[in-house]
């Protein structure tokens, strides 16, 4: 008697659980899972100029291999990724150490530090576009007052990628800082005390104790930033749209333009699936690295 009652309650409980999670699951299937399957299918299709579609097999993927613009985009994406990630990790860790030693951090200071990455990347792009204007921008005025040569910044094919990396690093280094600061605050203080008693110098303490203990946190920050950096879009699209020429045509920008400017949906699908594979590959690689440096 009580057994049946218990099963009844359990069945009811399962039913309620299913009902509670159903909206999120149905939404995810409809807006994410089904579209991704659809993109995979689109990647095997080709669309004629009249909009007639036909099965193309692997044609979109073989086109990828011989597409100079794809390889250029891949190179630009990786260059931007490496440059930005190194800048943000180095300066992020440095700033975290500075803040950590400042001990009590007033709320207003914390607000100032999170303000760059809370604002839309599009706004960051707009403001830097004005500051870095080659002829009237404040940045070149400062350079010239210091006796340094002015730069064409985003108008220069050579400097556009380093400049975009600088803008993104201005926006997201404080984010890395907050993650690393959290890691620093959770380290056991006994470690430092032991090092102090042993008479270790500040640099030695950092190199031998703090850095190894922080590595898992730093790798976590690297994962979170990599996801954004490999699919870099907003700041470039608002400032250069991939230019000058194709100098900042990252894979995400290229895929977007192939899809929505040239309306080559089949080829754009193949491009975006390739980029997605790159992003998830990087996440998995960093995840293994995190496992290797865990303590």
């Amino acid at each position: 008697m009580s057994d049946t009652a218990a099963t009844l309650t359990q069945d009811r409980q399962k039913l309620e659980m299913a009902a509670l999670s159903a909206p999120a699951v149905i939404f995810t299937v409809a807006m994410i899972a089904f579209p991704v399957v659809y993109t995979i299918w689109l990647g095997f299709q080709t669309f004629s100029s009249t909009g007639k579609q036909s099965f193309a097999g692997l044609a979109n993927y073989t086109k990828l291999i011989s597409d100079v613009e794809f390889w250029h985009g891949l190179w630009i994406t990786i260059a931007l990724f490496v440059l930005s990630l190194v800048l943000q990790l180095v300066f992020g860790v440095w700033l975290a150490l500075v803040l950590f030693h400042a001990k009590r951090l007033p709320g207003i200071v914390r607000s100032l530090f999170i303000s760059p990455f809370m604002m839309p990347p599009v706004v960051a792009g707009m403001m830097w576009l004005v500051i870095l204007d080659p002829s009237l921008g404040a940045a070149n005025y400062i350079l010239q007052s210091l006796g340094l040569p002015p730069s064409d910044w985003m108008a220069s094919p050579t400097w556009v990628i380093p400049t975009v990396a600088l803008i993104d690093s201005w926006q997201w280094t404080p984010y890395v800082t907050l993650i690393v600061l959290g890691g620093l605050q959770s380290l056991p203080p006994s470690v430092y005390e032991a090092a102090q008693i042993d008479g270790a110098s500040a640099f030695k303490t950092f190199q031998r104790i703090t850095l190894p203990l922080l590595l898992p946190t730093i790798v976590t920050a690297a994962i979170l930033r990599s996801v954004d950096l490999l699919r870099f879009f907003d700041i470039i699209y608002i400032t250069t749209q991939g230019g000058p020429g194709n100098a900042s045509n990252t894979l995400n920008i290229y895929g977007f333009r192939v899809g929505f400017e040239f309306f080559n949906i089949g080829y754009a699908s193949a491009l975006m699936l390739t980029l997605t594979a790159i992003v998830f590959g990087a996440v998995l690689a960093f995840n293994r690295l995190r496992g290797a440096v865990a303590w």
Partner: protein
Amino acid sequence: MTDAVNTDRWIRWLNLVQLVLAGVIIMTPTVWMVLSSFKPSFEVTAYPPTLIFTPTLDNYVELTKTTPFLSYALNSLIVTVGSTALGLLFGIPAAFVVSWTRISWPAILTLAARMAPGTLFLLPWYVMFRQVGMIGSYTALILSHAVITLPIVIWVLLPSFDAIPRSVFEAAQVDGCGVTRILWRIALPLVASGIAVSAILAFVFSWNYFLFALVLSNGDTKTLIAAAFNFIGEGSTQWGALMAAATLIALPPLVLAALVQRWLVSGLTLGAVKG
């Protein structure tokens, strides 16, 4: 002894100098944007740039007069509030079930979607929404932005639900409380602050999101972020109005973030750091 004290003081000074330097680098561009938005038009493009000027609201007036700025702002508000509400509506019960059952694949699936480049979804969405004539509709925009808000809500709330002791739920079950009632009556009040943080983060990231509205909106439903592109196009000498637009677009997320900055850190890192 005095040597040690001196070194200590010296290190503290060095630290302060670095702190100020970092603060100046972080703040200067934003301050420059706000200053430029209040400059008279002839001074915005002055070279060498001026620091002292008579502030004016001309740029803001011009912005609202020459562009449909306010209707773009309304569009942004509709899409952001709608997608945040949808994210909470779907995300709160889902996070509760994931926390209770430890069946985590729905949460992981939404996170994976968050990591994929947006263009991956935008291509099929565009084809699908066009077939049902929904390009340019608020519905399409809200649905697409809910893909941003849903994982934020789920992942910010998971640790909050996990923190509730199991015994609380078990006691309620003994009293004959169903799962839905436990969520509604017992769990929700306990995670109220987590819900507030997740709602604000969802709002900020939905407001800031650029890509989807770029393709899925039309002239009537364009969000501020997607319209920012037009402000730039309207002549590179209109820097004053451009900076006024940038300032106004950045204001809502900055104000919201400042209000809850203390609780934001753990939410922003999807639980990677206990803030």
